[in-house]
């Protein structure tokens, strides 16, 4: 239930225009690889697999284990959802500015997190 609300909210926040844009000419694998770099730089300190990290702890509590707490284990993320949280923030997670995560990097991050863990591991 919580998950549905979160996704609906993400959709509303993006009703006007997407907060990310795909860089033309970049292959999908290259985007996903670049997205992994963005994740490691900006997200993993809170959203890595360690259950004591702020983001992972919060998502474990929120979804009570119905979906994975660590973002890289999720199978339901889309670029829109990722962008809405990166640019909108939530609770103590302040939004990220474009000097931190550019629109192109955000698109890469969205591409990376939209893959399922199995797809990521096949690379």
């Amino acid at each position, binding site marked *: 239930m919580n998950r549905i609300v979160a996704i609906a909210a993400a959709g509303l926040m993006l009703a006007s225009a997407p907060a990310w844009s795909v860089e033309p000419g970049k292959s999908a694998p290259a985007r996903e690889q670049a997205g992994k770099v963005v994740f490691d730089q900006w997200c993993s300190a809170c959203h890595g697999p360690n259950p004591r*990290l*702020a983001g992972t702890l*919060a998502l474990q*509590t929120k979804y009570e284990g119905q979906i994975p707490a660590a973002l890289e284990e999720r199978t339901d993320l889309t670029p829109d959802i990722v962008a809405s949280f990166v640019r909108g923030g939530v*609770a*103590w997670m*302040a*939004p990220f500015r474009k*000097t931190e995560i550019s629109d192109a990097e955000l698109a890469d991050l969205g591409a990376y997190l939209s893959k399922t863990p199995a797809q990521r591991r096949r690379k």
Partner: protein
Amino acid sequence: MAQLPPGLKASVFADAVKAMQAAVGAEWVFTSDDDVALYRDAYSLFHDEPEERVASAAVAPRSVEEVQAIVRICNARGIPLYPISTGRNLGYGGSAPVYSGSVVLDLKRMNRVLEVNEGNASCLVEPGVSYFDMYKHLQATGSKLWLDVPDPGWGSMIGNALDSGGGYTAAPYRGHFEAQCGIEAVLADGEVLRTGMGAMPGSETWQQYRMGIGPCLDGLFRQSSLGIVTKMGFWLFPQPEAFMSCSVDLFRFADIEPLIDLVNELEYGNIFNGMPSVGSPVMTRGNAMMFQEIPPEAEMDRLVRETGLPAWRFSVSFYGPEKVIRAQWDYVRERFGKAFEGAQFHENQFVKLPLDAAAMEKVAKARFGIPSLEIFAVGSRSPKNPEPSAGHIWFSAVIPRSGKGYVQANRVMRQECARLDIPLFMFSPAVTCWTRSFVLFAAVPVSNDVAANKRLRASVQEVIKVCASHGWGEYRCPPAFQDAAMNSYSFNNNILRRVNERIKDALDPNGILSVGRYGVWPKRLREGRSA
């Protein structure tokens, strides 16, 4: 959402935007509402109120020359400019300006580590360099130097030092402004100043001798509105051979005064170099983050007897060669054993350095200069905290480093927080990264509820006054309280603020830089105000 500088014609602002685009490239000038909204203070106490401090635009230069160009553009047009480093000073304003309508000068793109000098154990960095960035750099280059980090690793080394942030390793490195050596700053007219030995062309000692000649000007840039710091040097900590943390438990209320006197003697005499703390297991039973009000002596001694918990716990740590730090701990034990009947001693952790990967997972990272964001878990949604707040602010008053001051500040602050119904999620014992003072920290959750925030603002203003009546002043605070905090330093009819204003008028006559930061306003915005 974006708000033009008050009193500025839209055509002048548009002209400035065009000039800034020419200076840094159009993609690095942000003017749309969505982009400017990213510069809101995520933990603002004015969230969605007319008083919320919001930017007119943001501009992100890549070099000192671009900073100079932007400053000149703004100075010529009277446009307020508010520099941020990484913009992650959350709880103290984040990336928002203090004065609405300011253009935020976002220095995140200036993220070069300019030098690491192994022999001198120093570095020179730009403001966009975060603790994470520097740690990675030191690791990648095989450096034998340690950083000293605050709790959140995404902060800027320069920004944190300029706001008097602190960390957790050895004494010379914990106070980040105190560990700086050499500043380069762009002044309001676009000129570049270098402090200390940086003022001498060809000097190789910019990161060795801080003072140079004449009045030491570094302090002009701490919590200030006088310049934009574009480079700063820091002293780094040569990696020690070992680390040991220990503690001493004492069981009588009356021990507190001789305890703190002895801690002071030992720290000032360099018997230990790690960060000390004096806590109270009996007063934090049930919730380690909430130090309760210290009761009268007889009551506290009764609680100690009933619970078996120590009244006081002195925690101490040592960095250095194993045989040296073991000898230091032996001496600490000897002194406490002689001074306190029934003292109990604990060696809690001993590790050889550098840490291996497995050990790294078991330690408090900041004690080892390893940046992380683990601290944010204290506010996460969790079984104990099912409805997380929107953010937090810190209240942090400098209090006397004595047993009497420790107890009195605890009681006054706890009573005031209770009287004013201030919500708290952390109330610390007196702690400090500085070797000569204590700071009492209270962490207060922030909501997005306008009425609750109004109440909270009024309550904190009251606490600032009460603290000032005891001579306790905040060392750092969010923009909502910077005027009140500065005004509480009121010796001789607020001459501290008035001298700051005179310097402001001299160095920044058009009043464009960091307008209002820490209670210093340019002439046009303070006229008519009484001292």
